[in-house]
């Protein structure tokens, strides 16, 4: 499945770029991310807890950043699996300056398999869009915060968990 989109962030490009490749920031911004650890240069292992509501699905995976050209573009490769299914994909992330703000363009190809793909096919695109929006909203808050300020707390975490439990729950045909 193709995932494409643009997101404008009202913060300067260098700040946005450094937020996007900072593991500590990513951990705070990726919906449900419990752990993101460097395992090598630009490679990370990640753990996502997909909800505390009706779901206790945990996904483990690896993230790799490639072709890094700060502050304009990089490539991300993701490979993860959990009890509800697996996910593999790669995508380009490009950052352009636009009237003092940053325009992020992402495009990638993701394969989803396992139970989620089998029974929740029709929901995947909507789910991906929703997670992307939550992620970039959080990144924007991070990039706008002053460096000496403590990182912002994200109310979206709870929303993400609620959403994800709903997603998984409804990922079946009636």
């Amino acid at each position, binding site marked *: 499945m193709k995932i494409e989109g643009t997101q404008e962030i009202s913060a300067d490009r260098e700040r946005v770029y450094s937020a996007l490749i900072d593991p500590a920031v990513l951990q705070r911004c990726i919906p449900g991310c419990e752990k993101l650890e460097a395992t090598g240069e630009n490679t990370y292992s990640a753990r996502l807890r997909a909800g*505390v*509501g*009706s*779901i*206790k*699905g945990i996904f483990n995976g690896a993230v790799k950043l490639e072709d890094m050209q700060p502050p304009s573009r990089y490539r991300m490769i993701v490979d993860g699996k959990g*009890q*509800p299914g697996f996910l593999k994909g790669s995508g380009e992330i490009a950052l352009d300056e636009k009237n003092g703000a940053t325009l992020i363009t992402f495009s990638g190809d993701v394969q989803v398999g396992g*139970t*989620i793909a089998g*029974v*929740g*096919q*029709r*929901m*995947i*695109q*909507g*789910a991906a*869009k*929703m997670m992307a929006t939550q992620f970039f909203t959080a990144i924007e808050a991070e990039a706008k915060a002053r460096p000496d300020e403590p990182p912002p707390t994200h109310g979206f975490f709870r*929303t993400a*968990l*609620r*959403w994800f*439990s*709903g*997603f*998984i*729950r*409804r*990922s*079946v*045909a*009636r």
Partner: protein
Amino acid sequence: MIPAQFDYIAPTTLDEAVALLSQHADDAKVLAGGHSLIPAMKLRLAQPQLLVDIGRIKGLSYIREEGGQIRIGAMTTHYQIESSARLREICPLLPEAAGQIGDVQVRNKGTIGGSLAHSDPAADWPAAALALDAELRAVSSKGERGIKAADFFVDLFTTALEQGEILSEIRIPIPKARTGQAYLKAAQPASGFAVVGVAVSLVRDAAGKCEAAAVGITGVASKAYRAAAVEKALAGASLDEKMIAAAAAHATDGIDANGDLYASAQYRKHLAAVYARRAITAASR
């Protein structure tokens, strides 16, 4: 197809149920008709630790008229609505939409409240609730509040219901005289879910022109929505074939459509305009 272990409590009053929910917070899940939740649990996609079954609570299953409104209890099944002669008379959109949900088993057990609270992006009730300008009543340990259908659906499987709230009742203004309604859907052949579903409720003036129209569309985006541009084009218009087609062409204005293996986003947008035209035509007869 065997769910993970879970606890089960069947309270007999709504107070008890909301108390349980606030006590167990994120671990608890409300069980209504169980035709979305139970299959998900069997696949172990959902693994709630506690099910609060509201099916034993008396007085959550009814259809009555009160205060100029139709009031439907959250545990009222799709079949009860489908088979209500009174609704067929005063608000035919409800039984028409109910009759198109899933299959006989789903309609016999599934509930209107469960479906709305679940907010599946392809469910039928959200479109009808929007077109009928429904008000959804939510009860929690802190009290009761009403949420307009237009504010209720937030995103994919996300509603305005807060943690600890239970949807208790659906209130719909009794349609005025000269109201025409229709619900038409293109059903996914395997699941029965709407690829596109369009609910229309329109009021005509004495001359036969459209006075006001409400159009709810499901299946296209991450949540059901009111097609405001269609409604605007219909207001004050004569309901001839050409006008209807022109209005229906706005069915997905400003909407971010989703695609899947069965129907691409572009195809869904096309279908939405076609079904909007047919539903408006049916409602204006």
